[in-house]
């Protein structure tokens, strides 16, 4: 007789989702991944708004990644109007993206994944069972958050990064304080990979089709998307390569990249662009066998390695900003015209694309946002099915625990995944 096992709500991830496993006896027929966050319809809300308002509004799509959403939106608007920002502005944005990577990976690893490794239900129990470990994680997260708060003017939905420039540049004193903060957590960051390379208690999964941005000279000007099989396409043509369909059981649309269920995020980046800072590079070398060409179970250790890379890179950026010194710069004014702009950044969870069209008055006429979680949705559903089938006959609770852990490997962010325009 058929039965359905439901995991609802999915926990220790952002947004609302559930999983249903349909079984016939102990045979798994199908698995449904339902991303059921309430629809906020951002692309529709942005229509008829001025270009200046777009980045302020769209960053609210997601709290965890509000910085990378804001930066990507700014880049897309600047792309439309041909704005080029100063070195200080570009470096400050880059610094904030690194800080976003640090705090986001730290939150995910120490607060959401670590409870799995220690067999507890969440942060509250962690505080009792492993207070020192939690404190270490929170300290790393705080070092990233301090940068975001100081450079962004606000930790979530930052205000200081703006179109064409900055509200104000960082003072030497602030830069020194932020550097000290990073140096203090550097040893913990370099050690984190040990904790999160704990082997998974479930079977192997299909090997992913990775997708990542090809970095250009400046990390904020990626213009090419690359796939694992060597295929690549210009970002500007993404609509021809990423196909989206509405799925009945989910509010998020299913994205296919060149017909494939692509995987984005830390593991994809390390597989495609392992151009890392020295310390992180050494860590990557020691974990290559678990990461290169491997399945999503390696994503958490990949995040730990990236956390180290982002810390080292942030330190370099701070040094360069200190060298340049604080300066008062007027933001570059955009030449408003009818135009379309497009930009992409590597968000902590993977490729994030923003594209906007404006009329001659700078009023938004189309808005399109493709998020990492929407891109990962197909691969996650595929892996859930493979895992459920691989565990046929096992105790139901063991299977559901494994499915939840797999979902956490993907680190999905459902609240921002549910906003995709039909193409």
């Amino acid at each position, binding site marked *: 007789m058929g039965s359905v096992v439901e995991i609802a709500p999915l926990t220790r991830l952002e947004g609302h989702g559930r999983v249903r496993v349909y079984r016939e006896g102990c045979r798994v027929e199908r698995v449904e991944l339902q991303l059921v966050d309430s629809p906020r319809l951002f692309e529709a809300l942005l229509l008829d708004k001025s270009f200046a308002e777009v980045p302020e509004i769209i960053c609210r799509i997601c709290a965890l990644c509000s910085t990378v959403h804001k930066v990507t939106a700014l880049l897309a608007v600047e792309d439309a109007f041909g704005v080029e920002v100063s070195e200080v502005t570009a470096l400050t944005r880059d610094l904030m993206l690194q800080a976003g990577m640090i705090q986001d990976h730290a939150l995910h690893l120490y607060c959401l994944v670590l409870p799995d490794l220690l067999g507890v*239900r969440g*942060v509250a129990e962690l505080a009792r069972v492993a207070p020192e470990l939690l404190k270490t994680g929170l300290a790393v997260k705080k070092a990233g958050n301090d940068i975001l708060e100081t450079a962004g003017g606000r930790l979530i939905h930052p*205000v200081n990064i703006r179109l064409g420039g900055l509200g104000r540049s960082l003072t030497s004193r602030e830069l020194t304080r932020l550097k000290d903060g990073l140096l203090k957590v550097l040893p913990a960051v370099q050690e984190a990979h040990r904790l999160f390379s704990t082997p998974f208690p479930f079977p192997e999964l299909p090997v992913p089709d990775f997708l990542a941005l090809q970095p250009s000279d400046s990390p904020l000007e990626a213009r090419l998307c690359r796939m694992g099989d060597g295929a690549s396409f210009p970002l500007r043509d993404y609509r021809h390569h990423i196909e989206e369909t509405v799925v009945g059981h989910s509010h998020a649309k299913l994205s296919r990249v060149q017909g494939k269920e692509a995987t984005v995020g830390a593991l994809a980046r390390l597989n495609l662009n392992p151009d890392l800072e020295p310390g992180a590079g050494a860590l990557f070398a020691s974990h290559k066998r678990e990461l290169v060409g491997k399945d999503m179970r390696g994503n958490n250790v990949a995040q730990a390695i990236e956390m180290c890379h982002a810390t080292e890179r942030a330190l370099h950026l701070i040094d360069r900003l200190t060298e340049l010194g604080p300066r008062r710069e007027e933001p570059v004014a955009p030449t408003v015209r009818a135009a379309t702009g497009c930009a992409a950044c590597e968000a902590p969870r993977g490729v994030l694309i923003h594209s906007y069209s404006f009329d001659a008055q700078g009023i938004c006429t189309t808005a399109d946002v493709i998020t990492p979680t929407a891109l990962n949705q197909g691969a996650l559903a595929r892996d859930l099915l493979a895992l459920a089938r691989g565990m046929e006959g096992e105790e139901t609770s063991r299977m559901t625990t494994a499915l939840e852990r797999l979902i956490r490997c993907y680190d999905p962010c459902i609240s921002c995944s549910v906003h995709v325009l039909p193409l």
Partner: protein
Amino acid sequence: MKLAIAGLTACSGCQLTLLNCEDELPELLARCELVYFPLAESGNVLEVQFDAALVEGAVSTPKDLELLFKLRNASTHLVAYGTCALFGGVAAMNNGLNTRQELLQSVFGTGGCLPESFAPAPLANFVSVDAAVTGCPPEKHEIVEMVAALAAGTLPPARHYPVCTECRSRENLCLLLEKRQLCLGPVVQGGCNARCPATGIVCEGCRGPVREANVAQELELLLERGFGKDEIERRMSRFKPEWDYGQRR
């Protein structure tokens, strides 16, 4: 203290702000029992009596409403946590302009596969609300203050002064009067220590109206400075769809 922390239609930023209180978190966790907090805890239970529920987000789906009713019935105190819960927030900004159906079709197409959703509205439109923390996102000190007060069996005092009060005491340049920019400071609830004007950015109104806001006067002032009525109203409604513009309207 048994605590529930839930998210409705929102970006999770308010819940995240609690996790961002890195210094205070261990102590906060020691003082409350997080019985329901899906963002950071597994094994959540709704079928108990809570001392307080912090609810983030606007109400925009039947599921939101169902969860809100459950939490209201189960909690001694229900706290509207953040601007969306309190005023509707960014999801509600077009409530007066488009029907929900139009917005849904614009995003999901007209193929008939539309999620169930109605115009996002504040919690207080559906249930009684005992206390509020405003902000998009809220200030850390305000959320720590709220949880600490709840744990002590009371509620923190509410603030009733505009962003301008704090902005002036920080001796910032006045963006509205001196730089003639579209700043909403005079009508917006303070408590953020004029965070944005202090970096040279206008107050975008993320904390919603201050009590007794003189909205008509703000509108007058901005019109005099040459801003269009549409632009002003669009900016005002970014976090709260309906303002009382008084006789100016």
